[in-house]
């Protein structure tokens, strides 16, 4: 019953909520980012990060550092924290935490299948997979020739199995089919996650509905913009949009027929939460759209911590950490390429 979570939540979730709130206080602040943006070399960045919670993960890395090394080690920290929380969690929190990683699992499946199609070594592909999305039989993906085999040989025993019902065909895997598979899987995953959160009810349902609806809307906009000028038909584009969110269903109908960014802007400006995002962009500009969406997402994720006794804080923490890792990746690349003037183009401050 909504409003009475305080009576029972702490029995099973109190410890982990305290843990995740402690982890949240370790996120980098604006002062940390200002110091990092002034670094001249990657070794300077490593030195600054050694003084943060990333210290134990980076201090033993030898010079010269590479930007991918910084990202890998920072991701390891998130993975360790997640695994600790997962092993301490009971149902339904453990199921909720597993849902938070299915997106990475889908990315890993597509990476292995695409790389195999391009005749890449499986071991090399496994090294590039996100650690949060790993599962036991992932290496067997390289054997499959079409989606039916993919499902039958490997994915039937994974949590992604229910999402495959919409895209099982005997067609051989090619670049377009793989892209449609990726987006269809992600759509099914988001809808399933949304239904699960609705079943949980209470504050979790309310806050997660807002966060997942924003994710679905952002996906719809990205799919629209990325498919402009490609062979993806309007019907196929419409099928990739999720069946929930603020834009569902009328916004999706309008987005499906957009042919350029200005038409997308015209559709999105009818929705007040997105009007503020698009009003910051000048006409024809798409580069700052990602940053604007990330800023809006961070604002919503931070707000979720204002309320207690719900699971959305776990989702929010993981997303904030991923945003932090994206920031560190961007800063490292700008420093490595000696383009510090552009460092503030994509850094999103969390606090």
């Amino acid at each position, binding site marked *: 019953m909504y409003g009475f979570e305080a009576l029972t939540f702490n029995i099973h979730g109190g410890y982990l909520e305290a843990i995740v709130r402690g982890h949240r206080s370790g996120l980098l602040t604006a002062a940390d980012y200002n110091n990092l943006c002034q670094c001249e070399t990657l070794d300077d960045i490593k030195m600054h990060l050694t003084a943060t919670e990333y210290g134990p993960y980076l201090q033993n890395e030898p010079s010269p550092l590479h930007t991918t090394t910084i990202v890998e080690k920072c991701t390891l920290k998130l993975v360790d924290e997640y695994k600790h929380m997962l092993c301490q969690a009971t149902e339904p929190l453990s199921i909720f935490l597993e849902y938070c990683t299915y997106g990475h699992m889908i*990315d890993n499946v597509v990476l292995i299948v695409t*790389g195999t199609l391009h005749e890449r070594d499986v071991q090399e592909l496994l090294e590039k997979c996100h650690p949060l999305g790993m599962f036991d039989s992932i290496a067997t993906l390289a054997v499959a020739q079409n989606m039916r085999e993919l499902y039958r040989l490997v994915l039937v025993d994974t949590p992604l199995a229910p999402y495959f019902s919409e895209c099982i065909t005997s067609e051989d895997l090619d670049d377009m089919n793989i892209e449609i598979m990726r987006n269809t899987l992600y759509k099914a995953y988001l809808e399933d996650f949304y239904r699960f959160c609705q079943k949980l009810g209470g504050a979790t349902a309310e806050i997660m509905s807002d966060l997942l609806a924003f994710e679905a809307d952002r996906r719809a906009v990205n*799919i629209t913009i990325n*498919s402009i000028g490609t062979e993806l038909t309007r019907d196929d584009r419409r099928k990739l949009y999720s069946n929930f969110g603020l834009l569902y269903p009328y916004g999706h109908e309008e987005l499906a027929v957009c042919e350029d960014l200005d038409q997308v802007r015209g559709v999105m400006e009818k929705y007040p939460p997105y009007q503020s995002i698009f009003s910051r962009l000048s006409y024809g500009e798409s580069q700052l759209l990602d940053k604007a969406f990330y800023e809006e997402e961070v604002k919503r994720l931070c707000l979720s911590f204002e309320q207690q006794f719900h699971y959305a804080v776990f989702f929010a923490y993981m997303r904030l950490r991923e945003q932090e890792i994206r920031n560190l990746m961007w800063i490292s690349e700008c420093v490595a390429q000696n383009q510090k003037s552009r460092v503030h183009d994509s850094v999103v401050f969390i606090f």
Partner: protein
Amino acid sequence: MEEEKKEIDFEIGMKQNQELKLEEEPQQQQKQVGDEHVLRFLDSVDNYLTLFESLSCTLRQGWLELVSARHSMGASRVNSSLLDLKVHSASTSLQVTPDIVDSMEEQPHFILRKWGSLYDGKCSYEDQNSKVDGLQGKSGSPLPRHRGKPQLSEEISPKQAPLMVDDQVQKKRSRSLSVFGTLVSPQLRAAQLSFETALETLVEIANMRSTMLSTFNGVHKELGVAKEIR
């Protein structure tokens, strides 16, 4: 007598002046030619340095756009392990032809064959039109032809040909980018264009360097001839 002497001296002086003028004319001409070579050399050096600067800016922009694409799409979608190792023909190749300069010297000339069309930094729409037939043969898909009324010309109109070429080039660009997926962000497409521009600039640099070396040789020869005359 004295007047006759003066007249003779005047005539001798006039003859000497004329001889001097005849000697100076080829020297002046030679000096003008030498100045022209030096000016051409300096122009080519200036263009060479400008092109280098332009290449540096374009590459910096391209690399940042690539990072921006990684930031937007995620590291699992934009990484080197997705590049295609299957055997396939190059979409871009370089053709080197000897160019005869001043009917004496051979100077290499570089032409970039990009997406199946020719580019040497000076390609006009007329050149693109003449390449359309070549593209038609290479792509394997016939271009649409007008049918029906005899008033309608069966030749491709000047406006349609560049559009068709652009369309095919756009398709080839998208196909080469499909290693990262078919729905890629605009930043990745912008990075592709930047690196394409950088490749074109490199070819221009190679041609400019060839011109620079050729004009330098010309200046060198002029200096050698000038020393011999002295």
